[in-house]
């Protein structure tokens, strides 16, 4: 799933490990989401959304919207 996680993380000045720690997941999970190899669960997507204080669709592109 296309997303802006890498950009948002870079803007915050965090490493993948930093973000992983804040989200309570592994660094591999963050890397897999950034490289679009893993679609996060709704629960994790909401956690990311809350951390960056942005709506989910501002971080993850909704493939079902035109």
């Amino acid at each position, binding site marked *: 799933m296309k997303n802006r996680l890498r950009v948002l993380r870079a803007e915050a000045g965090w*490493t993948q*490990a930093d973000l992983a720690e804040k989200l*309570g*997941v*592994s*660094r*591999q*999970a963050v890397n*897999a*989401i950034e490289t*679009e*190899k*893993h679609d*996060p*669960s709704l629960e*994790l997507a909401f956690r990311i959304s809350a951390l960056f204080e942005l709506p989910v669709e501002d971080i993850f592109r909704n493939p079902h919207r035109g």
Partner: protein
Amino acid sequence: MHPEITALRRSPPERTYIVRTLCFMAIYILINAAAIVGLFDDILGQPAGWAVAVAVTAPVVGQIWATLRLMAQSDEYVRVIVAKCFVLAAGGTLALWTAWGFGETYAAATHIPGWLIYPCFWAIYALVSPFVRTSH
């Protein structure tokens, strides 16, 4: 911390899994080594030999338990990766064993001992892991 060192760090569930794996592997090897050097010669080939068979199976069951615990204690990404590898390894092993079994029945293939299914499973698991980790 240096990026390479960060990449090599394991999460607590992964570290626990590695320790459990090494323990179960050591038990498996020790029992088989003891049987090979003749420690159980008095009971092998007799009904009491089942005790050795069950004892050597215990670490196999333990390893499956350790894998399930890793899945339960890890995050969703690791859980998905382990589950995919496990299913592919189980499927590959079943297919290979079925093909070889029928090969023995219908094509006079050389008989291979059933216990080889366990190392076969982990060999396939190791083989598919890098592809699963890099696939979408």
